[in-house]
């Protein structure tokens, strides 16, 4: 059970950060996950008055405030225009609209949950996170850091010509994914680069980068070989939702479909 002694709606980021340095303090996002845990929280810090609930688009980046809800990114035109339906696809299976009107991007990324669709999707897009104390770092670095007392301010997605696909498999609608896979391609330093992110393995999402030049008219067998290779480079585990072997198989299938869909678009 979660118990909270004090609720503070922070007036400044500085105040929020200072309050959060106490061991028994917690920053709250949408509270959806935190409320299900067991903890005695002395002070819960509400960030909702600090303007972190905006998605801002500039020439080079889309900056998503930590307090933006999953529903906001699901409906964000700027993300859709840049990367198609991938981001919406990554969140639309998460519980229900009411839930997504409340769960935040900050809580989802900060939590670094193994099952996270959100983390899987943003990791593939080579995203950055902006921290109050720790500056701006790559999400791929943040994901492997131990949770600390910093505050996540925003998630920054670069705008560049990339193709993005996202797919997950669930045993039943609204459940956690059995596996979540995302594939992104684009030019990096003049070379075609493929990024693969696989989450809910059930370990948290990890990223794989490959400089593969695959012709748009690659045969089905060729795409299947690449997909098999990519899927085999991740580790998988077993839990109540599926065995490691089943997950590896699903990852290979989803990666193959996503690669084929990207290549078909390039034809």
């Amino acid at each position, binding site marked *: 059970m*979660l*118990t*909270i*002694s*004090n*609720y503070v*709606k922070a007036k400044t980021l500085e105040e929020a950060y200072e309050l959060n340095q106490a061991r028994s303090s917690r920053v*709250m996002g*949408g*509270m*959806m996950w935190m*409320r*299900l845990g067991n903890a005695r929280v002395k002070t*819960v810090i*509400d960030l*909702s008055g600090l303007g972190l609930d905006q998605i801002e688009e500039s020439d080079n980046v889309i900056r998503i405030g930590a307090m933006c809800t999953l*529903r906001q990114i699901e409906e964000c035109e700027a993300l859709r225009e840049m990367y198609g339906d991938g981001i919406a696809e990554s969140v*639309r*299976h998460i*519980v*229900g*609209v*009411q*839930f997504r*009107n*409340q769960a935040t991007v900050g809580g989802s990324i900060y939590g670094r949950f193994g099952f996270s669709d959100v983390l899987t999707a943003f990791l593939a897009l080579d995203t950055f996170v902006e921290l109050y104390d720790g500056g701006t770092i790559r999400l791929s670095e943040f994901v492997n850091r131990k949770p600390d007392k910093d505050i996540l301010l925003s998630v920054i997605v670069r705008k560049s010509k990339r193709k993005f696909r996202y797919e997950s498999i669930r045993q039943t*609608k*609204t459940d956690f994914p059995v596996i979540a896979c995302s594939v992104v391609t684009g030019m990096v330093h003049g070379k075609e680069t493929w990024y693969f992110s696989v989450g809910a393995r059930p370990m948290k999402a990890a990223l794989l980068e490959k400089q593969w030049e695959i012709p748009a008219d690659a045969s089905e067998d060729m795409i299947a070989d690449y997909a098999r290779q990519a899927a085999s480079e991740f580790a998988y585990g077993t839990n109540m939702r599926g065995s490691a072997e089943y997950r590896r198989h699903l990852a290979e299938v989803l990666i193959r479909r996503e690669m084929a869909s990207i290549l078909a678009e390039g034809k």
Partner: protein
Amino acid sequence: MEIQFVLNQKQVTAEAAADTVLLDVLRGLGCKSVKCGCETTNCGLCTVWIDGKSRLSCSVLAASVEGHEVTTLEGVEKEATEFGAFLAGEGAEQCGFCSPGFIMNVLAMFRELEDPGIDQIKEYLAGNLCRCTGYMGQLRAIQKYMQAKAEKNSGQPGEEAGAR
């Protein structure tokens, strides 16, 4: 602590501890339509609107709604009764326990989506669980309600209240 917010268009004041959830405060204020089905953000029974958006009151800290607008089924009674007649007409209620949260989310959907198709409806309502029915009655009720509204708006005769 004392919290002040607008409940069903009336300014209200309530006492709440730091970890009191909105659901308990609303029931304390007499909104007994708001029910707890799971307490784990899965069932949608506790759905209310905060600033016009569907949210799960079992997981909202009451303190965080200070200064916001909350709407429960009691605040949209006329519309809820109208739609409820269509639910009853399609045999979509058995125990009826899921109906308040379901109706709140259906009404939110009508405000957000214009003429939603069947897949959009299913997706919008995926977070509202019903343990008695197979959802088919609810889907029929929604479609017939939308049809009746469209006919009413275009001046054509239609089923005014869905109950047959």
